[in-house]
């Protein structure tokens, strides 16, 4: 983004380009810049810096804060869902570690009974986070793993159950139905509230909004975890998801190590997005 002081046509074009390249979507980018031009004129904003500050505020304002952070809820059962490869398993591991370190009694459920070595992958994370893992053999019904996990959670008195599910495309009717069944079983078996968190990759383009809508329609989501922000993608699609579906962004994934998960701060996120 050009940082000269002048708020000329080139500046506004530059701004719109920055938002589009950040994956905010051409429609949202045009709306935001359009609104900002009106504000800049009406309020006679003095220079580019003043406009950028207002822009950061406008973007941050589009993302609702979490009135209730399911990842801080005590007690709670949380399902982690999303399309393939977004970072669900890794995020479950990181969140488990942080929660356990802060005194929560965490239990993990490996409900990805489909993909090669999915259970083994989560097992490593459970060991790293030093929390128990409930698993069944590959090919079992994921709902049955959830059932077992919640039974075990009651037995040992866990106050936080984190359920890793298989990646799935929202376009697969069968897999979305499987997920609804997993949720039904969780709700039936959990003595604690059941929440659903969508894990989305920061490199995702406009399809991310379609994904989120489908998962939200199927399950009713309670929040978003946005991963891979340590790359160059800005995760702008999360702004649209957050705003359009009224979902809070709960955490940001910023790397592959166990400590690489950060709390979400809207202003900080907006500032990084505008770059």
């Amino acid at each position, binding site marked *: 983004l050009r940082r000269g002081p002048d708020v000329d046509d080139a500046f506004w074009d530059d701004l719109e380009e920055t938002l589009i390249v950040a*994956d905010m979507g051409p429609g949202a980018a045009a709306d935001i810049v359009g609104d900002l031009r009106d504000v800049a004129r009406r309020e006679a904003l003095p220079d580019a810096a003043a406009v950028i500050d207002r822009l950061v505020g406008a973007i941050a304002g589009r993302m609702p804060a979490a009135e209730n952070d399911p990842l801080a809820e005590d007690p709670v059962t949380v399902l982690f869902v999303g399309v393939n490869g977004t970072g669900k398993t890794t995020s479950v591991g990181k969140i488990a570690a942080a929660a356990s370190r802060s005194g929560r009694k965490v239990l993990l459920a490996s409900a990805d009974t489909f993909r090669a070595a999915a259970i083994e992958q989560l097992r490593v994370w459970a060991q790293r986070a030093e929390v128990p893992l409930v698993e069944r053999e590959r090919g079992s019904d994921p709902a049955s793993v959830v059932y077992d996990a919640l039974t075990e959670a009651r037995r040992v008195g866990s106050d936080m159950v984190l359920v890793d599910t298989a990646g799935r495309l929202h376009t697969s009717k069968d897999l979305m139905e499987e997920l609804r069944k997993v949720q039904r079983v969780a709700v039936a078996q959990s003595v604690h509230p059941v929440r659903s968190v969508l894990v989305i990759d920061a490199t995702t383009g406009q399809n991310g909004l379609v994904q989120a809508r489908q998962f939200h329609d199927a399950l009713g989501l309670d929040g978003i975890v946005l991963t891979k922000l340590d790359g160059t993608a800005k995760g702008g699609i999360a702004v649209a998801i957050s705003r359009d579906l009224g979902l809070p962004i709960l955490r940001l994934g910023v790397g592959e190590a166990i400590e690489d998960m950060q709390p979400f701060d809207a202003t900080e996120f907006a500032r990084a997005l505008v770059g």
Partner: protein
Amino acid sequence: NLSDRLQGVFAKLTGRGKLSEADVDAAMREVRLALLEADVNFAVVKEFVARLRERAIGAEVMKSLTPGQQVVKIVLEELTGLMGGTESRLAFSGRVPNVVMLVGLQGSGKTTAAAKLANLLRKQGRRPMLVACDVYRPAAIDQLETLGRELDIPVYRGEGSDPVAIARASLKAAVADMRDVVIVDTAGRLHVDEAMMDEAARIKTAVKPDQVLMVIDAMTGQDAVTAATAFAERVDFDGVIVSKLDGDARGGAALSVRSVTGKPIKFVGVSEKMDGLEPFHPDRMARRILG
């Protein structure tokens, strides 16, 4: 979709005769919007619309009774042209074993693609071996070994945790086991991770692949070009596999990467299953991007 939107733009024209500059502007705006919504790279869209405008003010549109349809036809033609040809054959040298190396960002589908590719090559009469060079991700080697077992294709995991050494040793292992092509699966890595990009370059130098393929997720947004350009500069690759095309992402990233790097798209991933790798069809991809 774009057809409908352009019909809307040109609907007001009937009886007015010649298209005005404003009409062409409106049409170009719709095309730009459609392509950006499909995740085509910003710079690629800019260039594309500029070229399109040249054709849109030409006779083929201006003299047409259905200018909207004509613009759509031109857009499809131009997109298809940009997508490149159908080059789904992998070029191999005479050496033994041949080497294919897969690279890409985290979670793009490399490990799955490696196994699918091994399956495909075996169907073509080759004797493939999979090589597990991801020593970082928990159970990554497990994952490749499981897929290899299911396919009854050998997986070489080497000793120790140096991906360069593992890759190098795999060549000898392949010769000993009379395998004629090795497929090297590498760890997902960020193009801004200097050490990891350097590692990829070193693996490549160690085994001199016949083909380096970058695996790119079909749902990637504007970042696709940034990443692909960096991989092309730092590691260089010969072709692209676009994964997860069984979703409904429009796939503009594929066009962008092809257009900016010039690297052909060799295959597309269309399912999680081992037979889910298909040759790339540029015209189908163009139509998909247009929505």
